[in-house]
């Protein structure tokens, strides 16, 4: 505990705790007794008396973040610094931008950037870590967001907000693979005409893990597109809530929004809650969502058995697949290290090594 890669949370200033009541809420809620609308979190509060608060340009206050204003306020007050990154118009930036606790990224017109949000690698050494990331994507920009939650703390909060202007293309890939409590909210506003979002979210819940995910897509521009795919595996006593809202706002004519979730449940002790919401205030739009929840389908099982896998091996394949994909997507040594450390935890070192070697990462990089 004494040593930490991220010293900010560990300094000797007085620390209390506070409750973030009913956060990570969707735009439209439902019956409270289902306990699917929100999550209540207890988080540490470090006194910042006498500190100068570094803040992002005011512009970023207008960016809706997935976990809501209370989390934004808390995260801002706790972040040691506010990081502002700007990618110049037309610039294609190869080097990924690594998000800190409080980060704002301005991707100017026609530019391209990759933003990585990642937990510290390895076993939990901290109580709570968080990332607050706000992105403004100007017209015709391309933004890739990669989010890896792989442990490093007992509790992780990721709150992300993106505004996309005309013809901006956003893709977000989330991997929630960590142990403990993960609360993650993502809000994307497709404000400009023809703005697009592709969101894939992969998650793993095992043992006593708690996963609380909130996706909000506001389609405001004309002819916008959004495609949201969530899939995950739940085992042990894992509890997962996923809220996915597609909001087709008045004026978004010609827009299409689609959302699909596939969940594989491996244990009777799992609690799996899903709330796929479409809000529609416009007639010339198409919205659809689907969810399929359950065990691996009998057809899939038979296909996999015909190729030599037992039922259990078939189920394990789904877990391995999550890590394979996360590793393929991980663009930085830190994110690869975080995924691998978690893979070793979950799948054992033999499979983890196989993952590394198979992906051609191999010994070129010491992880």
């Amino acid at each position, binding site marked *: 505990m004494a040593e930490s890669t991220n010293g900010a949370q560990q300094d000797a200033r007085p620390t209390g705790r506070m409750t973030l009541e009913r956060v990570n809420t969707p735009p439209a809620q439902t019956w409270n007794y289902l306990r699917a609308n929100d999550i209540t979190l207890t988080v540490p509060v470090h006194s910042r008396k006498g500190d100068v608060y570094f803040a992002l340009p005011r512009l970023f206050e207008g960016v809706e973040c997935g976990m809501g204003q209370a989390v934004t306020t808390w995260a801002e007050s706790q972040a040691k610094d506010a990081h502002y990154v700007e990618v110049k118009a037309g610039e294609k930036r190869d080097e990924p931008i690594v998000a800190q606790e409080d980060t704002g990224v301005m991707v100017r017109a026609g530019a391209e950037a990759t933003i990585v949000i990642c937990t510290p690698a390895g076993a939990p050494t901290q109580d709570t870590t968080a990332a607050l990331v706000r992105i403004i994507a100007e017209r015709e920009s391309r933004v890739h967001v990669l989010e890896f939650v792989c442990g490093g703390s007992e509790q992780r909060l990721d709150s992300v907000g993106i505004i996309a202007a005309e013809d901006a293309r956003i893709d977000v890939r989330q991997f929630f693979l960590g142990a403990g409590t993960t609360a993650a909210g993502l809000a994307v506003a497709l404000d400009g005409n023809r703005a697009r979002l592709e969101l894939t979210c992969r998650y793993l819940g095992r043992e006593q893990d708690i996963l609380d995910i909130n996706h909000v897509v506001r389609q405001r521009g004309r002819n916008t597109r959004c495609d949201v795919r969530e899939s995950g595996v739940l085992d042990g006593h894992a509890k997962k809530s996923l809220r996915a809202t597609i909001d087709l706002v008045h004026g978004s004519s010609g827009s299409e929004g689609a959302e699909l979730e596939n969940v594989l449940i491996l244990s009777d002790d799992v609690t799996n809650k899903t709330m796929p919401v479409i809000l529609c205030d416009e007639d010339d739009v198409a919205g659809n969502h689907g969810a399929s929840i359950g065990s691996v389908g009998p057809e899939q099982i038979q*296909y*996999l058995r015909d*190729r030599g*896998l037992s039922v259990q091996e078939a189920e394990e394949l789904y877990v391995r697949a999550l890590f394979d994909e996360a590793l*393929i997507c991980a663009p930085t040594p830190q994110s690869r290290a975080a995924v691998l450390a978690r893979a070793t935890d979950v799948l054992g070192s033999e499979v983890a090594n196989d993952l590394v070697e198979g992906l051609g990462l191999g010994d070129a990089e010491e992880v």
Partner: protein
Amino acid sequence: MSNQLLRVSGLSAGTEDKPILHDVSLAVGTGETHVLMGPNGAGKSTLGHVIMGDPAYQVTSGTIEFDGKGVTEDAADKRSLAGIFLSYQAPVEVPGVPLYSYLRTITQKRPELKMTARKFRARVGEIADQLDMGSSFLTRELNVGFSGGEKKKIEMLQLLLLRPKLAILDETDSGLDVDALSVVSRGIEAYRADCDGALLVITHNTRILERLNVDRTHVMVQGHLVAEGPASLIDSIDEHGFEQFEKASAIAGGDQA
């Protein structure tokens, strides 16, 4: 006897409410190429699935032996590891599993194929080139969103990777355009050449057979094997169709009733 790889004896099977196969007997020797023909709905695909061990069908009598061992009671994964491969007519979509993870897992299951991940990648790359497949497909989900032709290529990729002793190709040629058909034919040839594996080709279309050295031809009508003969039988079917056999089957069926 010892060179008989697959021996099906007096096999009757069907679904819970409907018998489909009646007293089917058939033997395929090591490295041989057999063709199973018949009109639509004759039960050809059912036979393929029953040999593979599909629990959708129940065997009511008869036995299946593979490589000298009875496998009638074995589950599909056991039969697969023993060396039987069934190429699906409509390969199943498996969301959530990228092709790469899948191929790696099914390969590592077989002691004779175990290899380092690096070698494995190289091997998959080789086969993919052979089948004119790009490398991006490896990160896509198994069979999800692939065209019919691409799915068949993925089946061929698995065939060449797993090197089974017997491959049952269930209507692998159906619904393919000319280019995809030629790639699939190339895959089958490569399998014959590299693995010396036996083939049981289920089809009602003789085009795919033109480039194969067929050893035996079987004809199935209404769940009965009604004729067996050399490769030349195919030409006769090409010319006269299945009618000649359908009459025979009507008689056979009549006898049974």
